[in-house]
């Protein structure tokens, strides 16, 4: 059947027999088609499991980050309607209760990340505060009517969900929402009826244990994107609901992307005075990203690693395009997929125990793949000749070696992370941050090339040699903590050494105190001399200071810095110097950039301006800006249009083209 018609724009095709297949199957099938012999299924499975694990982890991280914010919000909502709870009738209270308690939630410009926050927020609210939570989005509410409709729909649905457990026969609640006239009064009536029901229920059932909610839980309305609501709708809603606030305990939550000032610019004073606003600030997206990188990339548990270029691309997209952590994670997911799809050896990219098992079952083809890896070739060349032959001919020997190498790689990662953190402790407090403020910058620098050969590293060491004692001591203490908590076993000696440094510093302190006293007494002696002598002694002092050998503290400081330097040289070798790094590192940044941060304009322009880029025909090869007259018509037309678009008469053009 063709998909061309002059009367129709949509064409549906259904498979003749309704074969219902599991989605996973088709997905793995599609990978299988390409290269069969290379454990595609296994790769797909490990890709999936890895992604699931990472997804879980990121969600956990997000939850933890939002915990503080959510706790604050919950306590605010609890507080807000305590008066309503007590059903006070005092005049002042009534006046006050004209105001709607409102939480202004400043979330930042990364709008795409907000969904997660709101999802967890509404879950928490439904668990702890009230079953009546409505999430409104601007795109659903072009008018106050739609807003009310949406609001009531959400509220009544959720109430039905709750009631289903206790009432078998909930026919009279389940009125079709289309028939209800959507107004505040009907909402209040609904609320009252629900309250009555729960009241009677609780009295009947003597307060069953599951009711964590209060007697009359507030109705929470969340405006996800406050800026994009029409001001009229918001104003109307606020004014109307403020009139009914003593009948319906309403609480609002505004999601704000820009700044809290927007409330006042959107709402006139008469309306905003009806709100009792409290401000809540969520964690900035940059911190969020740092945490994600910290917990996801700089850990040993995740077998998959990002190469330097790829990481830079992802961070650049984050910093220069959207500030969206979700998009960062999406990019990460794409990296995983690409890696497992394109690298046949990625089958070994899993937990070390599994990887060792998998090595044993590798096919001959896969062994050949290992031998083809550039890093492995380098390794082979460094071996003695017998070993070389064995590596290249015997599969079983290769497998043994591979297991060992994988182990080394794992060990390298464990050590790498701890030393990197340690180095970061030092560099992050230096003035001007020669190696970057964030650990991710340091990580990139270390991945890129041997970090100790860079100028920045040199200058940061220089600066570190000038640190004062208290800073140095705290840093060393931090380093000790890092090494103690790290999983690497090699660091026992390092910890010992660092502790030794610390004790030496403490000893120094005591000595220095004594020294100080002696110096001051010396100075006192000098006071008595005349001006000439004073000058002389000062000059001498200056001389001596210049040639003076270093104090003990300085010696120790040098020692410490040198020790750190040796650690760095030992452990922060760039990953691509390691054998078999290709198995776990994904480094084709161009693919990633093409897929995530495409430039359709440039592509179009290149195609039109320089068709040789795509059509590899010698006739099209051109120099500089000119275009050969053999280029496709469209290219020539485009060129002409660019150069003298205003001078083109279509008739002339069509009649005598070019």
């Amino acid at each position, binding site marked *: 059947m063709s998909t061309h018609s002059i009367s129709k724009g*949509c064409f549906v095709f*259904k498979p003749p027999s309704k074969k219902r297949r599991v989605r996973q199957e088709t997905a793995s099938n599609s990978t299988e088609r390409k290269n069969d012999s290379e454990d595609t299924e296994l790769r797909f499975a490990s890709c999936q499991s890895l992604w699931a694990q990472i997804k879980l982890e990121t969600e956990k991280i997000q939850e933890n980050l939002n915990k503080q914010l959510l706790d604050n919000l919950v306590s605010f909502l609890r507080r807000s309607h305590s008066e309503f709870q007590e059903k006070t009738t005092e005049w002042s209270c009534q006046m006050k209760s004209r105001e709607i308690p409102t939480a202004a939630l400043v979330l930042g410009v990364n709008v795409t990340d907000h969904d997660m926050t709101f999802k967890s927020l509404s879950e928490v609210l439904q668990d702890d505060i009230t079953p009546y939570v409505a999430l409104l989005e601007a795109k659903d509410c072009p008018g106050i009517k739609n807003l009310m409709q949406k609001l009531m729909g959400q509220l009544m649905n959720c109430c039905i969900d709750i009631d289903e457990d206790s009432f078998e026969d909930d026919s009279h609640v389940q009125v079709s929402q289309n028939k209800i006239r959507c107004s505040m009064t009907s909402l209040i009536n609904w609320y009252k009826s629900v309250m009555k029901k729960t009241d009677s229920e609780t009295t009947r059932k003597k307060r069953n244990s599951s009711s964590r909610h209060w007697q009359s839980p507030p109705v929470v309305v969340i405006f996800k994107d406050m800026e994009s609501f029409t001001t009229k709708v918001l104003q109307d809603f606020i004014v109307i609901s403020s009139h009914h606030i003593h009948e319906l305990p309403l609480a609002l939550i505004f999601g704000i992307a820009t700044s809290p000032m927007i409330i006042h610019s959107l709402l006139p004073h008469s309306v905003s005075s009806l709100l009792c606003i409290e401000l809540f600030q969520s964690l900035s997206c940059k911190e969020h990203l740092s945490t994600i990188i910290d917990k996801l990339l700089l850990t040993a548990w995740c077998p998959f690693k990002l190469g330097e270029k790829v990481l830079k691309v992802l961070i650049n997209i984050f910093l220069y395009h959207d500030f969206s952590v979700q998009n960062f994670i999406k990019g990460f997911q794409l990296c995983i997929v690409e890696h497992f799809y394109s690298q046949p050896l990625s089958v070994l990219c899993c937990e070390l125990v599994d990887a060792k098992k998998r090595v044993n079952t590798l096919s001959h083809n896969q062994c050949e793949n290992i031998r083809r890896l550039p890093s492995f070739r380098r390794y082979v060349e460094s071996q003695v000749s017998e070993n070389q032959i064995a590596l290249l001919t015997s599969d079983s020997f290769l497998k043994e070696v591979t297991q060992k190498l994988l182990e080394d790689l794992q060990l390298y990662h464990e050590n790498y992370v701890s030393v990197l953190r340690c180095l970061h402790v030092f560099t992050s407090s230096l003035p001007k941050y020669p190696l970057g403020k964030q650990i991710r910058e340091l990580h990139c620098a270390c991945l890129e090339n041997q970090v100790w050969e860079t100028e920045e590293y040199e200058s940061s060491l220089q600066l570190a040699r000038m640190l004062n004692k208290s800073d140095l001591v705290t840093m060393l203490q931090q380093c000790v903590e890092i090494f103690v908590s790290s999983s690497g076993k090699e660091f026992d000696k390092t910890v010992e050494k660092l502790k030794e440094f610390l004790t030496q510093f403490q000893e120094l302190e005591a000595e220095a105190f004594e020294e100080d006293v002696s110096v001051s007494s010396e100075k006192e002696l000098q006071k008595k001399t005349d001006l000439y002598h004073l000058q002389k002694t000062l000059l001498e002092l200056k001389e001596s200071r210049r040639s003076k050998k270093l104090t003990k503290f300085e010696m120790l400081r040098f020692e410490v810095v040198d020790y750190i330097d040796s650690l760095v040289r030992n452990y922060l070798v760039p990953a691509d110097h390691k054998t078999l790094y290709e198995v776990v590192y994904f480094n084709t940044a161009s693919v990633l950039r093409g897929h995530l941060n495409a430039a359709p304009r440039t592509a179009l322009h290149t195609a039109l301006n320089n068709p040789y880029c795509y059509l590899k025909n010698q006739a099209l090869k051109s120099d500089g800006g000119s275009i050969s007259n053999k280029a496709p018509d469209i290219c020539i037309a485009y060129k002409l249009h660019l150069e003298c678009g205003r001078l083109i008469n279509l008739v002339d053009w069509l009649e005598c083209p070019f």
Partner: protein
Amino acid sequence: MSQPEGKVSGALEVKFVPDEAVLSHIADDADPVGNGSGVSGGEVYSFQTPKCSSKMAELASELAQTPGQSVAADHFKCPEKTAKTPQSSKRSGSNKVQQRSKKKEFLSTTPYRLRKRLAAPDSCLESESEYSASCSEEDDEEDQKEVSTVLSGQKTPAKATAAATSPPRNALAKKIKEEKMSSLVEEYFEAHSSSKVLTSNRTLQKLQTRRLNQKTLHDLLKKAPLAYAAEMKKLSQQHESLFSKWMLQLHLGFNIILYGLGSKRDLLEKFRTSVLQDSAHLVVNGYFPSITVRSILNSITEEVLDHIGSFRSPLGQLEFIHKRFKEDASLELYVLIHNLDSQMLRGERSQQILAQLSSLPGVYLIASIDHINAPLMWDQAKLRLYNWLWYETTTFNPYVEETSYENSLLGQQSGSLALSSLTHVLRSLTLNARGIFRLLARYQLENKDNTSYPGLSFQDFYQQCREAFLVNSDLTLRAQLTEFRDHKLIRTKRGADGVEYLFIPVDDSTLTDFLEKEDEDV
């Protein structure tokens, strides 16, 4: 620049300005734009450098000077071109020259300005350049000869400039080159600063050759050989090797978007026929002129989900689809949209709905875009929903299907249909009735330049018809007009003063053609 100056002014006996003075003047005057012009604007946007524009202009002027050659060199010629009457081709050639002469104007302006700055007391030269300036403002209907004389007069300095660069006075030549560069820049801005657009005023209506109808045009275009077919095939093979990857990524929750020059319809069709044969899929031709989001959603609910009944709003419909896909996890649907950025789908609301649709777990979307600004349709929220993976698929294929709903300038427009229906209807009417219609048509044509022409009022019309002995009472005229109205030949509307105005809802050119034909018949 100084050399031609010297030559020309020498011939015309004016004060000779020493070269050094001119050069120093030029050095002073080298504007920052001129200096900046040497820096190329990157590989991609290299067209912005004036260097190429000069090349193009030179090329064009060469062609213009030898119209015959340009015809011979033209290898993209449509077959009907060769059948063109010699008269028309000559005319076009001369027109070219005229146009080029305009281009020359820009060349001539710079020396003119330079001269002014030098303040040479050169009245003769002044007048000449003034004359050429005035010429540029005049219409194209100007006499051929005059133009050519001006041209030849201007050609000398232009050629001399070209010659000036060749002598081995290196330092001077270099400076001259610089000056030439900056003058080109100036020229560019001058060409773009004047609000008057200088194109010839020829239109398709004036063309003598008959225009082809849609079908013959199509057939002719089909016969034209596709250039670089082999390379294009290689390109598409490259893209086809990605099919399995697409499938994998679609299943992992990404959606795929294709961009790049050339029609991507064939590629998507191939994807559909080779990979999607066994699964339910929906093809949407975004370029279809009356496609709506509604129709897309309808075909999903009605044909894929077998749901009978209508929905009040697209949002409700979307919710229903969402629910169905949630209930049945094995349900999956591939949606292929050709030209997601088409006129009908690019609206904010349609994009929102499509984005929401694409974010459903069982719906896999592959779409193509062609507009250069298409990515501006989406904000962050929509991008998040779409979850695009971008693929560059430049194919260089002609957009045949996509543009099949458009009318070509080369072909006859829908006006032809109106003309034939006009003649057919009128042929079946009485002689008087035809006279009445002709009268109205003439009147309308007489007033065609009057933009506020409301139509012919009924009273005036009646009067005129009476005078021409076409009707005898206003009842007969009314009866006649009803007949016309039934055939949609005329339309009436009430003016502000309540008077009924009559007019023919056909464009002027068709009406002229019609009258000519009628005159032939009569």
